[in-house]
C-alpha cells in the first residue's frame, strides 16, 4: 500500500518535535530582556518558530535565554534555575554582558554566564537586535535536529 506509511527513526521524529517547540524561560535580566520581549512582538514574532510561549517555571522550559548582565547576587540564582530545568535543556547567552561581561569589566558583573552554566549559543551585541536572537534560536533548533549539543564549534 504505497503512500500510506511514512518510515522514520524515532530519534529524528523526536528531535523534529523538540526543535519545533522550544519554549524559553522568562529570564529577563536587563536591556537584552527588552529586545527579547521585542522578539515576541508582531514584527519579529518568535511564535512562528515554535516558541509560542515563554514559561515562567523552569520545570516547563527547554531553553534559558540569559538576557542581560549577571550580577554577583544573581549568579547563584541562574545556576539554581538551570538546575531546576528538566533535561534536555539548552542555554543561549544573549548579548555581550552574558557572554563575557560586556562593557562591565568590574567587581559587580560575572564575566560570562558560561562560568556558571554551559552555553550552547552566544549572541553578540549590546543589545543584539531581535533578528540576532531569532538566528540564535534557529541555531539551537539546528543543534537539536543534529542531535548535538555543547556549542557550534565543539567537537562532535
Amino acid at each position, binding site marked *: 500500500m504505497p503512500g500510506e506509511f511514512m518510515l522514520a527513526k524515532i530519534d529524528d521524529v523526536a528531535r523534529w518535535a523538540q526543535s519545533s517547540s522550544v519554549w524559553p*524561560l*522568562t*529570564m*529577563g*535580566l*536587563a*536591556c537584552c*530582556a*527588552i*529586545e527579547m*520581549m*521585542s522578539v*515576541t*512582538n*508582531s*514584527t519579529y514574532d518568535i511564535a512562528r518558530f515554535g516558541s509560542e510561549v*515563554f514559561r*515562567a517555571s523552569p520545570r516547563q522550559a527547554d531553553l534559558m535565554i540569559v538576557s*542581560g*548582565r549577571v*550580577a*554577583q*547576587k*544573581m549568579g*547563584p*540564582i541562574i545556576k*539554581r*534555575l538551570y538546575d531546576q530545568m528538566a533535561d534536555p535543556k539548552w542555554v543561549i547567552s544573549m548579548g555581550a554582558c552574558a557572554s563575557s561581561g560586556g*562593557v*562591565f569589566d*568590574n*567587581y*559587580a*558583573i560575572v564575566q560570562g554566564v558560561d562560568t556558571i552554566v554551559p552555553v550552547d549559543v552566544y549572541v553578540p551585541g*549590546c*543589545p543584539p*537586535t531581535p533578528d540576532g536572537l531569532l538566528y540564535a534560536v534557529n541555531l539551537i533548533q539546528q543543534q537539536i535536529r543534529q542531535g548535538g549539543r555543547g556549542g557550534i564549534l565543539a567537537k562532535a
Partner: protein
Amino acid sequence: MSAAPTVIGTPLDVVDVKGNSMTLSMGPQHPSTHGVLQVVVEVSGEIVEKAEMEIGYLHTGIEKSAENLFWTQAATVIERMDYLNPLGNALCYVMAVEKLLGVADHIPERARAIRVLLAELSRIASHCVWLGTGGIDLGAISTFFYTFDVREDILDLLEQSGGARMHPNYIRIGGLNGDLPAGFLHRLDALIAKFPQRMRELRALLQNNPILRDRMIDVGIVSGADAVAWGLTGPSLRASGIAYDVRKAFPYCGYERYEFDVPTRDDGDAYARFLVRLDEMDEAMRIVSQVRKELDAPGPIMIADPKIAPPPKETIALSMEALIHHFKLVSESFRVPPGDVYQAIESPRGELGYYVVSNGDNRPYRVRTRPPSMYNLQALKLLAPGNLIADLVVMIGSLDPVFGEVDR
C-alpha cells in the same frame, strides 16, 4: 521541609509557616516583577501581611565604571542604567558635564531640538513597554502587541538617527554624534500621522474596560503627603495630585518654548497612574509635532569647539590640526574644570538626576545617580500590606520600576 536555606538576600528555600501566615519568595525570577526584584511576602491566604523587598540582583557597578572611563566613554555605561530610556540618561549626564564645562549655552539649536525630539520619543517608547507589560500582568495580552508595534516605529527612528535601537550613544557632550539622515523626517511624519489612531485604539481597548478598572481602581492608593514623604516623582507623584514636572519646574534643553500640559489626577491609585501615563503619551507626541517644525532648516549639530568636539572625519586626512585634535580627544579626552553639579530631567519614571563631581581630570570623579525607580519602588513597602498578591502585581506595574536604574 527543605535543605539549609541559601542566604543570598533572604533565605530562598524557606517556606516558613507560622500560624496562619506563610513566607514566600516572589522573584527574583518572576514573570510579573518587571525585572529582577525579589519580594519576600508574608501572606495569610492571598492577603499580603508584610512585603520585604530585596534588590541588588542587577547591581552593575556603573558608577564605579564611570569613574574609570573618559567623560565621553562614561556616557556609554550610563546609558545602560534605565534601559527603557537610554537617550534620557545620556541627555541628563551630558547636560551636567556641559554645565561644568561652561558650554551649556553654546549647544547648537538643531542639536537642542533633536535632543528634545528623541527624549520625547523615548518617553513614548518607554510608556509603550510599561503599558504592554502592565497589560500582560493583568492578562490583557493583546495590548502588548499593539504597544510594541508603536515602539517598533520609534525604535526604527532611533536606529536611523543613532545607529542602534537601544543604547545608540547618539547624544554626546557638545551636541550629537551626527545629523539626521535622509528619510528620517519622512518617517517621523508618518509616525506623527498614525499615532493618534493608535492611541485611540489603545484607549478604546483599555480605558473603560471593566476588568481593568476593577483591577486598578482603589489599588495602591498614595496620598499626596505620602507621595512626597516617600520621594515619589513622575507619573506616580502626579497621579496623587502634585503637579511637579522637571520640564516645567526647572526647564532644560529648551522645553520652555513648547506648549504642553502636565497631566495630573487626584485619586492616587493605580488607575490614576495609568491615566496619567496615557495622557503623557499624547502630550509627548504634541511636543514632537512642535519640534518637527523646527527641523526643516539645516544647522550644525555639534559645538564648534575643537577641544571638545571631534573634527569631522573627512578632515582628518587633510588637516594636521584636525588629526592632532582627534588623536588627543580619543587617547586622552578633554579635561573638565573642577566643581560639582546636579542636573535633573523628567524621565518617564520621574526625576532622574546626576550629581557629577569633577576634580579637573579627564575622567568623572563621581557620578551619583538619583534613580527615580528606586524611590518609586520603595513606596511598595507602604502600599503592599493588606492587599492581595494580585494587587501587588498591579502596584509594581503601576510604579513602573526599571531595575537597571534601581540597582545600577
